[in-house]
């Protein structure tokens, strides 16, 4: 039998709490930026909004149990890691493209580099809680 992954149990609860705080912070920040000064830096603010959506998806994916939720969490943590690496690198070498700070600028420096560490911990945790494949060899004998 495939065990449904429980990503929100034990240490996973701490991870969900950190993700939830980032989801709240990123969503409200992006909301204010887009509502009040979108024309100043559309690319940066759209990236802020994208980051916010990813944090929300990761929070929900990790907080819920089941294989679908696990896949949502895996996808969002992966995109999050790629995003922070890409935006982090671009913001250093092409600072003109990112005149305004986003969560991922300089690998999340403005947020104590937590945006860089968080997806790595998330992916490691998802590996530990991965759903078992329905392989007969995995079943206990007898």
């Amino acid at each position, binding site marked *: 039998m495939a065990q449904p992954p429980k990503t929100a*149990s*034990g*240490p*996973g*609860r*701490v991870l*969900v*709490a*950190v993700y*939830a*705080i980032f989801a*709240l912070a990123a969503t*409200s*920040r992006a909301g*204010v*930026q887009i509502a*009040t*000064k979108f024309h100043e830096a559309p690319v940066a603010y759209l990236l802020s909004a994208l980051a916010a959506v990813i944090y929300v998806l990761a929070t929900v994916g990790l907080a819920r149990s089941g294989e679908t939720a696990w896949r949502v969490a895996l996808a969002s943590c992966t995109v999050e890691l790629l995003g922070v690496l890409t935006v982090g690198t671009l913001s250093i070498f092409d600072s003109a493209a990112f005149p305004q700070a986003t969560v991922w600028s300089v690998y999340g420096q403005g947020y104590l580099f937590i945006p860089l560490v968080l997806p790595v911990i998330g992916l490691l945790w998802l590996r530990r809680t991965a759903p078992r494949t329905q392989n007969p060899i995995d079943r206990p004998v007898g």
Partner: protein
Amino acid sequence: MITGFAITIVACSLLTAVWSFVLSARNREPSKALLGGLAAVELLLVVQLIIGVVLLIGGERPGSIATYLAYLIGCLLVLPVGTVWALAERSRSSTAVLGITCVAIPVMVLRLNEVWSGATA
């Protein structure tokens, strides 16, 4: 904003955070005393909301009223939501979750004060 009061909130929530992490490291579930500590921080945040609104009525203006009110009211939600999430499955992790929520409060209070002294977002 009254700077001294903001510093009091930051200090109290950081103390409660350290207390949570120490209890979690010692493999403890959240104690009644710790939850009392969180309640005290929440009470300070309610007082902060009252002070903030009184200052607004008195005619003082932050960098952005909407952002300012969002922080004033938003930071009231963090500890209750975090506590519900923490207590839904009691373990040493619950105690760490409480610590994490306590760390979020100083960040929000600092931002609140930046907005009060003129920042717009």
